[in-house]
């Protein structure tokens, strides 16, 4: 709407639709709408500009409440990448490897997906694209053994960054969540304060199940940041806001395509502007 009109239930309903359609979920949407209706009581004269600017301000405030974990690691930095099937883990690792390689760091990729067809070949191609090394063991019966060997090697060779790829898994698969927990323990065996960064990869098209994913994965290995992928599509990825709001896990990276350079650091202001568009 243009010009000043009185605040109404109708305007609040429109805002609610906007937030729910962006996958923020009912709880977060209602919390924000409540806030807006307190700030602009019914029949207060408002313009769409000041209502949206207020909402934008509130959303950015929410996103800035938890800072990203900036870990200055003396020695090898260990990054563990987890998430449900097809979310974009392997591709995102290729992007991160490229990022670190471009910073002049020595990078080692660990082929921790010992299960899926051609998973090793896929990660190998990414290691070649990024110009970094990869450690694998096709005979491995448990990903923890590949991870252990890779980390011991990285320690001896003083590798700057180790990025561990894991198989996709649903948080409802208990044995796979146990497997992840074991990988986490094995990482700690080699580097006591590792993983220095555990990234949960979340597809921007994910609905409310994303909250369950974050909650359950956190039980097997504490999650530091989200990598929100496929934001180059039509989905708004609002589930990442719901996860941040409920579990204090911030988005650190966003995926914007399928090439090595198609990633960026998460920018709350740009993201919220696009969300409310």
């Amino acid at each position, binding site marked *: 709407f243009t010009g000043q009109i009185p605040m109404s239930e109708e305007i609040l309903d429109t805002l609610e*639709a906007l937030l*729910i*359609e*962006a*996958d923020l*979920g*009912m709880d977060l949407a209602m919390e924000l709408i409540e806030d807006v209706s307190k700030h602009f009581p019914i029949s207060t004269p408002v313009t769409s500009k000041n209502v949206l600017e207020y909402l934008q301000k509130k959303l950015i405030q929410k996103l800035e409440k938890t800072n990203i974990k900036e870990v200055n690691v003396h020695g090898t930095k260990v990054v563990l990448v987890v998430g*449900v*099937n*097809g*979310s*974009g883990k392997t591709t995102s690792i290729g992007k991160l490897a490229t990022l670190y390689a471009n910073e002049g760091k020595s990078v080692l990729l660990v082929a921790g997906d010992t*299960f*899926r*067809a*051609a998973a090793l*070949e*896929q990660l*190998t*191609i*990414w290691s070649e694209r990024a110009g970094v090394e990869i450690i694998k063991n096709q005979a491995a019966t448990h990903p923890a053994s590949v991870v252990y060997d890779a980390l011991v090697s990285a320690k001896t060779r003083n590798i700057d960054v180790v990025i561990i790829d894991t198989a*996709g898994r*649903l*948080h*409802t698969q208990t044995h796979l969540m146990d497997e992840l927990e074991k990988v986490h323990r094995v990482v700690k065996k080699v580097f006591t304060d590792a993983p220095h960064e555990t990234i949960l990869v979340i*597809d*921007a*098209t*994910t*609905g*409310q*199940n*994303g909250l*369950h994913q974050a909650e359950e994965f956190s039980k097997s290995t504490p999650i530091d940041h989200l990598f929100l992928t*496929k934001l*180059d*599509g*039509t*989905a*708004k990825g*609002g*589930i990442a806001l719901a996860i941040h709001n409920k579990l204090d896990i911030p988005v650190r990276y966003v995926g914007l395509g*399928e090439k090595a350079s198609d990633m960026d650091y998460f920018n709350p202001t740009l993201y919220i502007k696009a969300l409310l568009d």
Partner: protein
Amino acid sequence: QFSSNLENVFKKIRGHGKLSESNISDATREIRRALLEADVNFKVAKDFIEKVKTKALGDDVLRSISPGQQIVKIVRDELSALMGDDSGDMHLSGSPAIIMLVGLQGSGKTTSAAKLAMQLRKQGRRPMMVACDVYRPAAIKQLETLGKQIDIPVYSNHQEKDVLKIAETAIKESVRFSADTVIIDTAGRLTVDSAMMDEIKNLKTRLSPKEILFVGDGMTGQDAVATAQAFSDVVQFTGVILTKMDGDARGGAALSIKAVTGIPVKFLGMGEKIQPLEVFHPSRMADRILG
């Protein structure tokens, strides 16, 4: 969970005889919460609730001694009816019959292609698969590996970048493979990528697959509608496979996609293991959506 919440809404008004507008609005709020938490699209949920409201204000409910139970039944029945029939039938005419799989990145197309091949063989057909994803690293290798695992022939060409040439050659070769069904796996793509949407439009135009299946991730949220609509506009798919339903996603996308495109979900992907897809049952899906 949903039905007990709804029961509680009506427990408060038992013995008062007639249902009031506010009773109905309390009930619809409960229904809406259940649908949105299940990832049913916002607008689809709104339309659905209007339908339910009309039926809920009908005589059977107003005179019922347990209006809550009546409304639960209306919601369940309406949901199942909306999601179509549970036939899982595919159009398999043609020599060979051609099935094409399309969808967003990572939705489960390649895995579902193998599952489809396995169930068709169980049904007495002789399927082969075609690797038409020339973009994703090791995509061809992935389909070839799955083909070997289940002993289903895969046609591929690691040098050819034109997917139409790959598909056309595969169809010509189907006789040599003694295959009566050709399953085409395509690359994941975004609906906003016009070049990639043109690619599948072209495949459809030139190959005339009788069965085009949209493979959607079962945990998709509100975007299910926009994406399904876009794919339907470009290739008019004839069925949907909803994957990763072995998880705890409620699967509201099943309702959203059907409501907006009119195309039914035919199969569910229930795991990473290559096994036949599960046939879609609307009533079971309705219960799952309602939680």
